[in-house]
């Protein structure tokens, strides 16, 4: 049978209760659940371009703001109008400080990704070498992190579109190709294969490499429905031009199954009908 604690023991709880009540009434520094709600609201706002609202939420964190909140604030400031090189430089300074603080925690990884991005696409005068090094370092540090996974495709873009080369050198293709097997996330793999396929088509036109990557992208599964359907028709057209008839016909047929109302439907139906007529008449 349990007994109620002795009175002195019960009295010990009083200061704790007073403290908790005071924190709740004062309503200044957000309690942990409150801070969490503010953060999530800030992230949600930033994910919908509502940057001012996101900053307002983060500002309300006050002393509860941590390293990750600072990194997120920098990410939002990067795009809050008016943008300028001075803003980018200030954001980079903040991100470098965070990275130096701890390169391996969530804030450090976020800072590392954003620093590579600023060097790649945010500065008026990009520094692709710095960006590529940043992407590589992030991938080495935390290869499975979603931002590091995405960094693989960003690195491939730098390797494949350096304007100094009319066509990328073989080692650039090789490094970009080698990224694919390292990606466990199917969406990331599909994206990298699509990026490679597009580069091959841009530089070389239709060829086996482009087809191989289009097929690999389909197998991994593009994230957007329209990209999936476009990739399917890409496989069909590329295979047809390469004389891979069975593969082309299969892809066209799947396209008709997968696509809804589509401006290419009639052309594909005509093509399949003509092929069937040729087959029946024994024409090559």
């Amino acid at each position, binding site marked *: 049978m349990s007994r109620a604690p002795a009175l002195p023991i019960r009295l010990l709880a009083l200061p704790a209760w007073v403290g908790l009540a005071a924190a709740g009434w004062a309503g200044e520094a957000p309690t942990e659940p409150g801070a969490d709600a503010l953060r999530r609201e800030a992230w949600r706002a930033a994910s919908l371009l509502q940057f001012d609202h996101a900053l307002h939420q983060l500002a309300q964190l006050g002393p509860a703001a941590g390293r990750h909140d600072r990194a997120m604030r920098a990410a939002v400031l990067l795009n809050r109008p008016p943008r300028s090189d001075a803003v980018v430089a200030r954001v980079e300074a903040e991100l470098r400080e965070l990275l130096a603080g701890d390169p391996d925690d969530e804030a450090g990884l976020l800072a590392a990704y954003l620093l590579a991005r600023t060097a790649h696409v945010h500065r008026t005068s990009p520094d692709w070498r710095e960006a590529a090094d940043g992407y590589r370092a992030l991938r080495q540090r935390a290869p499975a992190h979603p931002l590091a996974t995405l960094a693989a495709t960003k690195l491939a873009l730098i390797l494949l579109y350096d304007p100094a080369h009319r066509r990328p050198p073989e080692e650039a293709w090789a490094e970009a190709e080698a990224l694919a097997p390292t990606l466990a996330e199917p969406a990331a793999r599909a994206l990298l294969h699509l*990026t490679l396929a597009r580069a091959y088509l841009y530089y070389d036109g239709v060829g086996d490499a482009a087809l191989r990557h289009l097929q690999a992208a389909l197998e991994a599964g593009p994230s957007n429905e329209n990209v999936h359907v476009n990739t399917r028709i890409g496989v069909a057209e590329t295979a047809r031009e390469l004389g891979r008839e069975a593969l082309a016909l299969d892809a066209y047929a799947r396209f008709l199954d997968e696509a*809804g109302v589509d401006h*290419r439907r009639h052309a594909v139906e005509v093509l399949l009908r003509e092929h069937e007529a040729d087959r029946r008449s024994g024409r090559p």
Partner: protein
Amino acid sequence: MTTARLPALLGASLLAGVFLYATARLLQREGEPASPGEAGGRVTVRLAHYLVYESHRPYFESVARDYERLHPHVRVEIADVPIRVWPTWRKTQLDAPDPPDLVQLGQGFTDEQMALYLLPLGEEVARPNPYNAGTDLADVAWRETFVDGLRGSGDSSETFNYRLLEYYGVPTYANTVRLFCNLDLLEKITGSRNVPENFEDFIALGEKIEDYARRHRLPITALAGAEEYARLLFTQLFQQQSQRVTRTFDLERNLTQSDREAAIAFLRGDWRPDTGTVRSAWAAWRTLGRLYQPGFLGAMRDDAGFLFKQQRAVMIVSGSWDAFHLLTDNPFEVSVLPLPNPPVATSDGRLGPLSESALLPSGSFGIMRRSRHPEIALDFLRFLTSRQINQRFADVCLRIPVVRGAHPPPEIAAFAPREDGYESGFSPYFQNFGRRAVYRVMQTTLDRLVAPSGSVEAFLADLETPFRAALRDDVQAFARDSARTFQRTDSMLVALQALAVREPEAAHRYWRLSENQSLGESDHHQALHALAWANP
């Protein structure tokens, strides 16, 4: 009381009367609603649009009254604003203390404006539209009740915004372009009501009309034209004539042309304005240009419509948005026809007629975040886009409906989007690309092609240098604009990545947005690479 005190008494009485009247008015006002959204116990929702056409005002009013009958506590106000002042008006409304509850999209509604001022509709469009009850759409998700399932396209921002991965509007109509022909005038001139069936017939008819007008000293032309209307005709003809060459530079082999791909192909020397089937398209333009009234490139669309209504032109090319105006209230019969295909003699660039399946539903409406009654605005939007009301829109305003199962009325059956066609080739106007530098060059050079004193050679000589420079400018502008889009996406992505730890849906959005961003970066880098290595 003495007469001397009378004026003072009258003055005091007047003052007291005014005071009492003012007090009564003030008390009366205090009884009125505090906000303009509530009146006499009824809530008011306001819808603003720029469809200022003769037929549309009574239509919108009738829909509003019908909704009020179903919901007596609601009053629906419709504000129609002329399209010329619409962008400015809309801008003032975005931050106004009492903005409209529902607003028409399009006309430069930016991603930022959508994100900041409109309510996302993703969850709502996944639910059935209750106003489709009793039909086969009763249990269908609202988005799937539209002919395109609100899939839109990468550039569409009126329904599903691919850059924000969110639905912000639902559409009410689609647009196609056709040839309107005055059959009575045609018969008077040719002795027959037979309409032209191909390009050769069309040109022959034009010559007959020209001859008739000369002989009878009448100011009649084959086509009533304005720059905008001529552009519709010229563009479609060019897009057919360039179908085959466009397939050769289809960078993604996805049978979908884009201005970006055509621009890169030009920079890489894959096509030139003065060679092959592209050159033959200019010749067809020149032939068509002779059928318009003199000075048509300087005319406005109202001028052209007036000529047609006044029977000073046998035909006019315009879109379904003008169907009501051009088909009704005429003392003559009008037939609607497909546009003439390019001439057989130069048809080696064609694959076939243009498919219109890619036409995006338009006339979308979104709900303002600061709407005082968003739930009623949403309900009215559902009502407006129910099959029954969309069919009424088609019937009353002669518009192409976009709700599945609603059909164009017989008068505009010829406007129904053509599905048995092929993908379009490119347009030399590059109308929505970069900073529209090519578009301006085309507008200022075109008279050298279509004027009686002009020629294909003179036009090409004048076009060559400015076209090349303008296209480079537009590619650079495209690269700048696309960079701005994916820069902005970085902030969205890191936020989604943080959210994804607790919300699986955010992870899905993260990868979808990453894919859109990175493929956009491929396009951007290709454009810059093509500029760097283009032939000077």
